[in-house]
């Protein structure tokens, strides 16, 4: 794709990150670290790769997006608002009483959420069900699922992977947000994910190892995953930085589920503002 569009996507990702920080700051609650590490993938999906219609969120032929690591929903909520699923002002209601923007995604409350998530390990299986239905009904939509590297410690992930292989789901694209951190520490400390990318390969996936915070690589990998129709489910094994874009949050486990204070918020927004690229 054209360099120009990549530049636009990068700037959109900066917008999205700013919304993430703003939402979590206003809610004084939420998960900034992971929201920032998946931001580039979420941006690439919603603003470049996915076939969706914000005016018709239940459109049968839409591509599906599942945030299996549901706690990083501020990134998805920001994308949905920016796409016009609901007004930008709704972002200010994150985690507040009566809001469609629940602490973890609720498909019954928020338009554009394809399945409720929040309990780790479960979203991928739901995506497998959707992808099977697409295949069985001869529909050409794709199912995008974002899972965390920590989340891959859940057994159900691997149950879902073997099913994706059995039913030859080349319409399933799994983004593994390999940021190396989880709540209690590094994944290596808590539970080493031995050869995580190879595991997906062993389960029958075509695996594309990329820098998940490099927009050019993310877009190129999705484009490739979309075109290879060989019956294999696709895995974007993406090395990412937790907290990406905000220097003091980067690779800091403490920013898994902590909201910034006023000073930190201002610093974060200032840093993000400096990341726009001019033409």
């Amino acid at each position, binding site marked *: 794709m054209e360099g120009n569009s990549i530049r636009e996507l990068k700037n959109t990702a900066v917008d999205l990150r700013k919304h993430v920080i703003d939402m979590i700051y206003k809610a004084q609650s939420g998960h900034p670290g992971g929201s920032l590490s998946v931001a580039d993938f979420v941006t690439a999906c919603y603003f470049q790769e996915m076939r969706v219609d914000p005016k018709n969120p239940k459109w*049968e032929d839409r591509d599906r997006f599942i945030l299996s690591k549901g706690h990083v929903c501020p990134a998805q909520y920001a994308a949905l608002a920016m796409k016009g699923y609901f007004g930008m002002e709704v972002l200010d209601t994150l985690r507040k009483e009566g809001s469609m923007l629940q602490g973890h995604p609720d498909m019954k409350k928020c338009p554009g959420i394809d399945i409720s998530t929040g309990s780790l390990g479960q979203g991928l*299986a739901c995506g*497998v*069900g959707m992808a099977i239905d697409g295949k069985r*009904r001869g529909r050409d939509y794709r199912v995008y699922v974002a899972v965390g590297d920590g989340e891959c410690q859940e*057994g159900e992930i691997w149950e879902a992977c073997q099913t994706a292989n*059995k039913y030859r789901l080349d319409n399933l694209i799994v983004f593994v947000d390999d940021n190396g951190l989880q709540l209690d520490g590094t994944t290596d400390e808590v539970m080493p994910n031995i050869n995580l990318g190879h595991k997906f390969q062993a389960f029958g996936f075509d695996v594309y190892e990329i820098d998940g915070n490099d927009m050019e690589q993310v877009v190129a990998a999705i484009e490739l995953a979309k075109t290879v129709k060989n019956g294999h489910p696709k895995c974007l094994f993406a090395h990412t930085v937790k907290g990406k874009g905000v220097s003091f949050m980067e690779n800091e486990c403490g920013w898994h589920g902590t909201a910034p204070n006023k000073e930190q918020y201002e610093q974060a927004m200032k840093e993000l503002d400096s990341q726009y690229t001019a033409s």
Partner: protein
Amino acid sequence: MEEKKIATRDGFGEAIVELGKENPDIYVVDIDIGKSCKTGQFRKELPEQYLNVGIAEQNAAGVAAGLATCGRIPFVVTYAAFGSMRICEMIRQEICYPKLNVKIACSHGGVTPANDGASHQCIEDMGIMRTLPNMTVVMPADYVSAKALVKAAAAWDGPVYLRFTRDAVPVIYEEGETFEIGKAKELRGGNDVALIANGDTVRLALKAAEELEQKGIAARVLDMHTVKPLDREAVLDCIHTAKAIVTVEDHNIYNGLGSAVAELVSENSGARMRRIGIQDQFGQSAPYERLLEMNGITVENIVKQAEELLEQKNRG
């Protein structure tokens, strides 16, 4: 006349094929125990509506949820122990919370797996499922009602937990009898005492009512096939007219039918009640009838409990 006995899982197996042929949205998600849960015919006749995800229950619940978001009506088919406990949280998160149209259809309910032993018997499921918001919980009493209630579950909007027997149980209904989810069947009238049972114990309540009649006691018998939503009207009528209730179930005495009825009794004073069920203990490999006996789930004990209640009632 010799009693005709059929396992209610067979009723499920027949009904699901009929449903699948009528409606291409009906799916079966098997977890490797389809043969035992009687989905063999469905698998053979409707392969396009059939999935087998292997020995991976959690994934089955998620896959079914995904299918349901696309408009399908999947039946996740397994044993009660796995369908209620192994995947309890997946049912909560991905099926009940978004109120998706997924049915959990479980064979091997209660102590009917008998010689399989405690690991395969399931005495906790109805109580666990009853606690989940948006969940409907049903256990048919026999083959005829199993077929009818499976069809009612398919037509019901939202999650349903269905529980069947592994072992054969007597057929008590005539073919063509109709059933409504949430509506008890009164099998026998009587205002001295009400026997409220479900599943394979309904037949025991019926026999106990016959014995009580010999003693001049008129017992009402209700088949409370739906534990949730409970037929409040039917229970309230028992509370107000009979004033004495004995519940009977092939389930732990905690959190199942007896508890559901006791909740209403406690909020609407005026009736005495006794609960007959599994005595909060695991089972063992043994004949099914023996396992019931070990827990006092017998005609004799139902009669005894009913008589004791009546004595108390008469003493005031």
